[in-house]
């Protein structure tokens, strides 16, 4: 796969927890361990959305987190991809009727890639990142 000019060195991901139970976080961390080692392709987690190409969003978006999610999305430079990881982020999961939710994620910010599971396996998260790369290539071509 050929990466676009803007992303031909690496793909950096920022993880944003919008109210997750921590199950998806454990799987995201598992996905970056040496067993899978996505960093050999330049894929790694970064500490600021200002440096990120992909947002890995977990959790069903609680009311307290709505502003943070919107702000972090706004602070991520373009072109960007949002991945909703886990059942909660996609549909609200077991909390879909909760009074304290403003989610799921695509009710708050636009989502490009959905990775289902409770929690999704690391292989599924990495597959989602590959899908995100393909979409980023498309976006970059449209901008060019």
């Amino acid at each position: 796969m050929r990466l676009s000019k803007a992303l031909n060195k690496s793909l950096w991901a920022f993880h944003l927890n919008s109210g997750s139970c921590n199950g998806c976080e454990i799987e995201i961390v598992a996905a970056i361990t040496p067993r899978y080692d996505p960093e050999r392709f330049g894929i790694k987690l970064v500490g600021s959305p200002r440096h990120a190409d992909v947002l890995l969003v977990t959790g069903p978006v609680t009311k307290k987190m709505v502003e943070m999610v919107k702000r972090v999305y706004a602070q991520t430079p373009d072109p960007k991809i949002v991945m909703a990881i886990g059942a909660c982020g996609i549909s609200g999961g077991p909390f879909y009727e909760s009074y304290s939710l403003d989610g799921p994620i695509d009710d708050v910010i636009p989502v490009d890639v959905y990775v289902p599971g409770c929690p999704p396996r690391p292989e599924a998260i990495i597959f989602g990142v590959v899908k995100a790369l393909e979409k980023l290539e498309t976006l970059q071509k449209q901008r060019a």
Partner: protein
Amino acid sequence: MLILMTQLDTGFGVWDPLVWLAALAVAIILGFIIRSFGVKDYKKGTDQTLPFLSGDKQENVEYIHIRASNLYWGYLDALKGYYSRLIPLHTGIVTDYLLWLFGTMAAAMIIGLLA
């Protein structure tokens, strides 16, 4: 020749302001060249230009400013019994200070005369 005229040789080293100015000019030009490689189509006037504070809103700088007193709050807290009495005495009114001055002087003189 001009450079030689502005050169100062102290015996420990050489100081020449023109050389420093030339180096500064080169550094500025390099800075602009590096800056020109940056992404230009960012959204001005939005959150994209603000620092990332873990998703929190950036408060007024004066509100979040760390004052010097934050560095020695433990000292003030340990001596709050002393400060709680001392601070009200510092009213900022000149006549109060004069009263303290003359009152203390009078007390010292009386003690001196009695001793």
